[in-house]
């Protein structure tokens, strides 16, 4: 029977199936960071357990880490303790840790692919909901809680039930100024933040095929914001070209064997999905969110929704509450709304291609002096590439703050945050109340829209600057 790539990935990782119980699934790669792992290591200690497969486990520090000069001590004692605890845990359990002083440190979902750890056909987990990022390589990658982090550390397995298969078909050609970020924001606006609950997305179609690997990562990254625990793209030549020669990717005859294996992964002709949705890439415009969840998004030229037009009372109150929090009025445009901060970074948009895109627009221009612009590369490797291309000079000359790698103001755990009431245009993935700092207000958008808004000081349609 023809199968989707999602079903192939599932079938090839079932270790054991007891009637009436969930499947026991093998995990090929486990990524660990400082925030969701300490209590899992404690659990192992209490039970006298070891990490079963240190060779399939790798840790880094990203969430709590300052993005200021790394030679300075960490100001926040609680963050310092958490970062030290990660190093201690990794050393005690024999795990490789790309910690604060490693030249490979970075956001966990940036370093997995760049090191060649993430490969087609794998199962990948991490105690982080944006683990779906790794699906860009044709891997089944999903976020887990701390209890499950403990399960994977101790057994390299998880108890799981199969998800529904959900095809997201994006055909056509993106217009100038429209990017991968706009595809995923358009999908979430269409299906809502709960639209993919219980499902794994497979992104298909000509527009997806024409995306580079980093753009595919941007799309897969935000699958969770559409409710899907995972989202993936079947591997193709772009995938193999990206991986060739990466440190942990197979080499020599093992590489040839891997390619032969990976070519079996794409969805079979005639395989059926539980659900499908289509997006017309030709019709897409730059997208932006206006509310307090990623589903509250719209084309940047649209007017804000009117709560009164919503029939369901709780849904109406939810939109009204969101607009009130955001200090916005239904029916008005968002274009031209003042911006205090622009954040270019996060596991969604902090890779070299994102920085190149933003720098391309900012080169030779000055950002509006009222706007604080933070550019945070996703990893030490991204930082090195950017330096080699002269990007930090472009950002600094434009008036941006060029920082050290980490999650930074996407999650605002490390001191990088909005003040109450401030507005940001952010290339990150969540606009929840307080996500970028208590009382802060976030508009999610692409690196192009973020850079355009940095230049003008207001929410701006980048197409007017191209």
């Amino acid at each position, binding site marked *: 029977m023809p199968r989707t790539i999602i079903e192939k990935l599932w079938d090839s990782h079932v270790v054991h199936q007891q009637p009436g119980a969930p499947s026991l699934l093998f995990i090929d790669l486990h990524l660990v960071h400082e925030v969701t792992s300490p209590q899992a290591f404690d659990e192992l200690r209490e039970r006298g357990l070891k990490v079963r*497969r240190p060779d399939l486990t790798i840790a880094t520090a990203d969430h709590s880490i300052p993005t200021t000069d790394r030679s300075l001590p960490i100001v926040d004692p609680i963050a310092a303790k958490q970062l030290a605890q990660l190093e201690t845990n990794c050393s005690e359990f024999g795990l490789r840790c790309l910690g604060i002083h490693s030249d490979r440190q970075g956001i966990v979902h940036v370093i997995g692919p760049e090191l060649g750890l993430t490969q087609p056909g794998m199962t990948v987990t991490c105690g982080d909901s944006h683990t779906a990022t790794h699906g860009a390589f044709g891997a089944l990658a999903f976020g887990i809680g701390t209890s499950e982090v403990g399960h994977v550390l101790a057994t390299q397995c998880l108890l799981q039930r199969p998800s529904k298969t959900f095809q997201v078909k994006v055909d056509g050609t993106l217009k100038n100024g429209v990017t991968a970020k706009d595809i995923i924001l358009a999908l979430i606006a269409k299906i809502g933040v709960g639209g993919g609950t219980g499902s794994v997305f497979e992104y298909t179609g000509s527009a997806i095929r024409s995306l580079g690997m980093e753009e595919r990562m941007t799309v897969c990254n935000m699958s969770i914001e559409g409710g899907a625990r995972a989202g993936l793209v079947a591997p193709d030549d772009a995938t193999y070209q990206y991986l060739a020669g990466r440190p942990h990717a197979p080499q020599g005859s093992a590489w040839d064997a891997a390619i032969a294996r990976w070519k079996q992964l794409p969805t079979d002709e005639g395989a059926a999905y539980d659900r499908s949705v289509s997006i017309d890439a030709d019709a897409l415009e730059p997208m932006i969110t206006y509310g307090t969840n990623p589903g509250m998004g719209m084309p940047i030229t649209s007017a804000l929704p009117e709560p009164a037009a919503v029939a369901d009372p709780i849904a109406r109150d939810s939109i009204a509450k969101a607009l009130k929090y955001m200090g916005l009025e239904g029916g008005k445009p968002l274009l031209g709304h003042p911006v205090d901060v622009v954040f270019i970074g996060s596991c969604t948009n902090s890779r070299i291609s994102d920085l190149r895109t933003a720098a391309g627009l900012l080169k030779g221009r000055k950002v509006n002096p009222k706007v604080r612009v933070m550019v945070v590369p996703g990893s030490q490797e991204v930082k090195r590439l950017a330096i080699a291309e002269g990007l930090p000079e472009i950002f600094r000359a434009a008036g941006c703050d060029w920082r050290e790698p980490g999650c930074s103001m996407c999650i605002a755990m490390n001191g990088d945050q909005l003040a109450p009431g401030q507005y940001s245009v952010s290339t990150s993935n969540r606009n929840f109340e307080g996500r970028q700092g208590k009382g802060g207000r976030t508009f999610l958008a692409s690196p192009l829209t973020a850079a355009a808004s940095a230049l003008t000081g207001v929410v701006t349609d980048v197409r007017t600057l191209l």
Partner: protein
Amino acid sequence: MKPFTNFESRLVPLPINNIDTDQIIPARFLKTTSKLGLDRQLFNDWRYDAEGNPNPDFILNQPRAQGAQVLLAGDNFGCGSSREHAPWALTQFGFRAVISTSFADIFKQNSLKNSLLPIAVPADVHEELFAAVAAHPAATVKVDLARQTLTTPSGREVVFPIDSFSKHCLLKGVDELGYILNQEPAIAAYEAAHPAPIRTL
């Protein structure tokens, strides 16, 4: 884990859709390396003002919330971040069940591992519960996990879904890690047949 037992409780209504785990517990409280002491930070930014004083309008600060064990929330509860701190904070406050029309996948799994029962009900039952608690704040529901029933304040018995494995684990207080560790021979056999795809440096 302690076995999950039947109980009767008042409801704490929170009629907001898509309550994300950043609201349940904001990220800045995730720098802790412990599971404990999170109850004070439950719904922190809705619960306290800028000076850290309780916001009297927020339901968790009202007498009716004290001792209540069931949170009644809008659709798609627990979306967003995978932080297990969310069910830790909810259970430490005293909640044993959350009722919604649907739950985000990761939150649901995290809850089941912490004896917090996610009860998904159809829209009409959801509406009935919000109406009942609006009319009578002290109205109670009964939760019977073995029978998978929720009894509404009007006495209507509603069957809720839960997979048989999770139900068994909750009722017996079994933790999943113990179960997985018992599958050692199957794991070893799988590993022997599947060499690691990652090239070790």
